[in-house]
């Protein structure tokens, strides 16, 4: 038990000392995760909204597929992205393997179905409420999707948060396509895995503490924003 507290104390010491290696890893993690979530939202919000609003052949299949892909195994995504980006793969000439870009692509593939599936549900529910009014006003298809996304904006923040949670905690895919290269593709989760295997528990735990703190902080901010929106009747 003493060992645990001593490791934890050392971990906090590292965090408060603003260790440059630690900051570099945290910075890269945030850059990769936030970029992946941004692009996932860019694709997932309109895709989910379109599936939620419009009736078209194959809609049910697409909806089921999006829901199923929410549980996409990250290592499988990592493997597929690896094969696509490897020298002999179709995207090999882009030379993205073992770069943060490859990690962003992998994370985006994991997060997009989550964002799209949850958005579909949110927008479908809201559309049920607005549909007749929109039809009465003669709102066009594009305006309808944009309006629903705008009016669901605070709920969609929670959707983005779900995507962020999945991305920031992801380890399998980014390890495969990023390679966990020091000062290049080393992020918090891959470092925790590596340092634990090496027995360097202080750094691993320090990163774990930071990861938790970030997750708590982002969640708290989003929930506070949502709560204020609910109070103002905008959500």
């Amino acid at each position: 038990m003493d060992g645990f507290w001593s490791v934890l104390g050392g971990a906090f010491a590292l965090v408060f000392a603003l260790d440059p290696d630690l900051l570099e890893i945290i910075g890269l993690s945030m850059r990769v995760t936030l970029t992946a979530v941004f692009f996932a939202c860019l694709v997932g919000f309109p895709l989910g909204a379109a599936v939620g609003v419009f009736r078209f052949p194959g809609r049910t299949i697409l909806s089921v597929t999006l829901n199923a892909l929410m549980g996409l195994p990250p290592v499988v995504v990592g493997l597929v992205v690896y094969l696509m980006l490897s020298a002999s793969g179709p995207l090999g000439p882009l030379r993205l393997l073992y770069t943060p870009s490859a990690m962003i692509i992998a994370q985006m593939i994991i997060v997009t179905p989550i964002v799209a599936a949850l958005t579909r549900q949110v927008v479908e529910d809201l559309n049920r409420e607005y549909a007749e009014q929109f039809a009465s006003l003669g709102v066009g298809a594009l305006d309808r999707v944009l309006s629903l996304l705008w009016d669901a904006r605070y709920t969609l923040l929670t959707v983005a948060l779900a995507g962020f949670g999945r991305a920031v905690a992801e380890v399998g895919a980014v390890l495969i396509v990023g390679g966990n290269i020091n000062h290049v593709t080393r992020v918090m989760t891959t470092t925790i895995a590596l340092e634990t295997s090496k027995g360097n528990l202080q750094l691993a735990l320090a990163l774990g503490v930071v990861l938790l703190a970030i997750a708590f902080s982002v969640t708290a901010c989003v929930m506070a924003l949502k709560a204020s929106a609910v109070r103002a009747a905008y959500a």
Partner: protein
Amino acid sequence: MRDAGFDMPAAPSASRQSLAPEPLLEARGLVFEAGGQRLLDGVDVSIRKGSRTLVMGPNGAGKSLLLRLLHGLIHPLEGDISWQGGPLGKQARQAQAMVFQRPVLLRRSVLANLKFALSVRGLRGSERARKIDAALASAGLDHLAKRPARVLSGGEQQRLAVVRALACDPDLLFLDEPTANLDPASTAAIENLVLEANARGVTIVLITHDSGQAHRLGEDVIFLQDGVVAETGSARQVLNNPQSEPARAWHDGRLYLGPDTRSLAEKSGRTV
């Protein structure tokens, strides 16, 4: 008009015929089914241009459904709806507006709700601003313009819904029980908006269960029972001297249970 099988189906009165040379909206033989049930069965309706028509009848008679069909929100299984003699197309829909029983307001400010509706109709800039100002003033909502629409009281929300619909300059305004659950002051405010709009030439089609409101607003009445038109005519005639048994039952405050049953007591075999 379809023979509804009521004891005294009423034909349109001679005075009403003379008042109705120019129907704005006409429906012939409307049939609508859902869940294996026929909810509207051969409904004929004629709405005079510039008139105030009330759609009345007990719960489940098909009043809201009829309004949705006439507004083109849903399509009939059978029957035709014509707008000024032509089909009920996109242009006709743009000339109509509807206010629902429960106002559907966007999760935005009062101002943004009006702005949105007018933008959809293609209005921008100073013209839109002028219409928004006029709408807010007519509803007495100027001071609440920046408030989220959903924190307004029920009466304020419904006033906003009415002026939002009217701001789009419709030729015909459908109102589905716009004053249900509102206090007398809010009801009066809505009725004033409706009467002012009608005075400007907007044709009104309104559902109500409120006898007082029917007398205050009604010119023509369409009385529905079990998805068929039981009676149509001038408001004075239908409200004061109904000819059909369903309308008489409504007038007397009785529950109409069918052509062979005059009261709930008869239905259950009890005597009251």
